[in-house]
């Protein structure tokens, strides 16, 4: 009796263990990395079905748009399937680095000029020139200056999707309520400061709780870069060294400190509090500041959130009688060096930037479309706010230059800059100490890369 029981128990437990072990293995093998292209995609019926993957950063609205573009591409190329892992801006870069390390990176990746050096200098991207030469990738409709922006040390590592410049936005309803003149399209930093102080004064007198402007002292790019350029210098040289002087950085911190001392911009702790919130909760959307900086392609998002009035955009100021700060920014597409299907990936990029349906879906999602044909195609569908964006980008592009791209290590430098600006804001260090510290840390980081 007991023996039978024992035997039964051992048989049953053997079975349990076997299923567990077996389940573990299948569990492991069935968990192919998302967006990976680890398997040789040969489906039995069509013979030649290829799977590529495309990843981007963005929010829900962007995901819907890009998914639709992928669907259009699949419909036009029945033998190619597009996987679409995506993430928010902050997660995106952390995840991408690990994916590339593990060899499971997507074929096509959304690329940004602030990050391209991190990836190209580490040989993670594919040179796209051969695909342009062979005619798979048609770039003839991209303006020369934008196309040039895809070259890093002589190799074509990325293709522009959209081109954009940054500015300061304001809501007409807010200004009307205060009874203050709107900011001018073309203004100096001095005028900017006066305007911010004025907004605060008038708001106080009417018992409205708001500051003049957002505190952008910690924004390395684009805002500090504009400041450097209007001073006739560059943020980074072509050789990947810093190209600005200590006094320029010191004046920058000083400029914002003066506004902070006059209560024209939020205090340091308020600024910290609002730093990482989604746009519907940020200082501008909640009406706590009158002016705030942003890339022009996001204008429509703020217009959608505005309860009344028009959200307009004006230039980032320059220094009186000095150079313009404008430089071309944009969003790009790259192919990873490890891609198993670079030809199909190049085909996808070609479709993305040249196909009319794809472009009419894209509209201004990550800037004004990079091809001249696409701009003509999307213009009839534009809402007033989108037309304002196009006009702003076109006007500023006329005076914009090309800034040398940030070198590898810029992710760290960007964080350092924000931290130092924060130390100045909390009055931990003086603007001069901040400038000295930042230059020292820049040199530290750049010498290590």
């Amino acid at each position, binding site marked *: 009796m007991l023996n039978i029981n024992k035997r039964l128990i*051992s048989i049953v*437990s*053997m079975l349990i*263990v076997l299923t*567990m*072990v077996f389940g*573990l293995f299948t569990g492991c093998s069935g968990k192919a990395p998302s967006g990976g292209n680890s398997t040789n995609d040969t489906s039995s019926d069509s013979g030649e079905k290829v799977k590529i993957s495309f990843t981007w950063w963005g929010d829900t609205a962007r995901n819907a748009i890009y998914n639709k573009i992928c669907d259009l591409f699949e419909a036009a190329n029945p033998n190619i399937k597009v996987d679409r892992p995506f993430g928010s801006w*902050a997660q995106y*870069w*952390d995840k991408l*680095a*690990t994916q*590339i*390390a593990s060899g499971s990176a997507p074929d096509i990746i959304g690329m940004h000029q602030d990050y391209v050096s*991190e*990836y190209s200098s*580490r*040989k*993670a991207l594919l040179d796209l020139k051969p695909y342009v030469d062979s005619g798979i990738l048609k770039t003839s409709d991209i303006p020369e200056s934008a196309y040039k922006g895809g070259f890093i040390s002589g190799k074509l590592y990325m293709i522009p999707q959209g081109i954009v410049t940054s500015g300061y936005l304001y809501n007409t309803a807010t200004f009307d309520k205060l009874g203050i003149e709107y900011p001018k399209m073309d203004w100096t930093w001095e005028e900017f400061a006066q305007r911010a102080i004025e907004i605060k004064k008038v708001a106080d007198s009417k018992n409205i709780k708001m500051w003049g402007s957002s505190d952008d002292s910690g924004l390395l790019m684009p805002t500090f870069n504009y400041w450097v350029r209007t001073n006739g210098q560059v943020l980074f040289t072509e050789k990947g060294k810093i190209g600005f002087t200590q006094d320029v950085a010191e004046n920058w911190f000083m400029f914002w400190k003066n506004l902070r001392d006059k209560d024209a911009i939020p205090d*340091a*702790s*308020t*600024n*910290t*509090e609002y*730093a*990482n919130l989604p746009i519907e909760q940020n200082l501008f959307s909640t009406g706590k500041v009158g002016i705030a900086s942003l890339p022009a392609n996001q204008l429509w998002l703020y217009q959608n959130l505005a309860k009344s009035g028009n959200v307009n955009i004006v230039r980032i100021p320059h220094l009186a009688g000095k150079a313009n700060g404008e430089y071309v920014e944009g969003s790009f597409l790259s192919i990873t060096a490890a891609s198993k299907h670079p030809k199909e990936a190049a085909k996808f990029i070609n479709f993305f930037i040249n196909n009319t349906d794809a472009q009419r879906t894209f509209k201004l999602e990550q800037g004004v479309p990079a091809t001249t044909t696409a701009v003509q195609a999307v213009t009839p569908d534009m809402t007033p706010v989108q037309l304002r964006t196009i006009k702003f980008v076109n006007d500023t592009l006329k005076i914009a230059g090309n800034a040398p791209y940030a070198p590898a*290590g810029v*992710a*760290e430098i960007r*964080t350092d800059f*924000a*931290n130092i600006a*924060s*130390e100045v804001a*909390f009055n*931990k260090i003086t603007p001069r100490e901040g400038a000295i510290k930042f230059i020292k840390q820049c040199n530290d980081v750049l010498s290590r890369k």
Partner: protein
Amino acid sequence: MRNWLKKNGAGYLFLLPWLIGTLIFTIIPIFTSLYLSFTNYNILNPAHFIGFQNYSRIFIDKKFITSLIVTFKFVLFSVPLQLSFALFIAILLNKGIAGLRIYRAVYYIPSLLGGSVAISILWRQIFNKEGLINGLLSKFGIKGINWIATPSTALYTLILLAVWQFGSSMLIFLSALKQVPIELYESAEIDGARGLRKFASITFPMITPIVFFNLIMQVINAFQSFNSAYIISGGNGGPLDSTLLYSLYLYQKGFSNFEMGYASALAWILLIIIGSVIGLIFATSKKWVYNQDE
């Protein structure tokens, strides 16, 4: 061999799933990270051996010192507070109140939720300038600050969040209190001992092994704390690095700056630090942990 198999085979077979998991997800990664800590691995390119360079860099890294100070502060405040609070609640519950089970469950809930993203976000809301705490203070006419965005107070909100997750220590204390022999109390009462005296002379000495166990577990946990600081500071350990816990700094180095070799070295330094602190606690344990077998 056959005998050994007969005797132990089934046991090892049962262990197999866990063994494979440990090997793949714990042991191999641990040794990989040890190797990587001697390389300049940057995630995107193959690693090259650079000897002790990472380790020598750590000791002149100002941020490393900052994060160490923040972490020690966090551990020194959060662990003792959390344990005393857990013990206090456990003693109250041990008084035999009605509905003990419900209370036990309710007090345990924060421990289940505490590490979650949602709670960290909630914490942000509670301690904001227009948050719940300042709402309460304003009723007393006190004008509150933004607790999370002020360098001198930000870390204490994290400590409070850690203390609030006292549930698991509390449950363990509760079962320990139930083990204290009742006759000890009876004889003490005959001698005229009162509440606090009873606690100091009987309850606490009797549960010291459990205090010791909880202390070790919580210290290890606190040193590795990451989630709440990451969420509450938006990933940057701000304001002014006041919430830059060691793990958060390690994460920044590894995943934001691509310095995986350096981050691995940081991880090993942390291991050595935790090991030393636990060693110290063990060394003092002879002095205060009461062991019935002796």
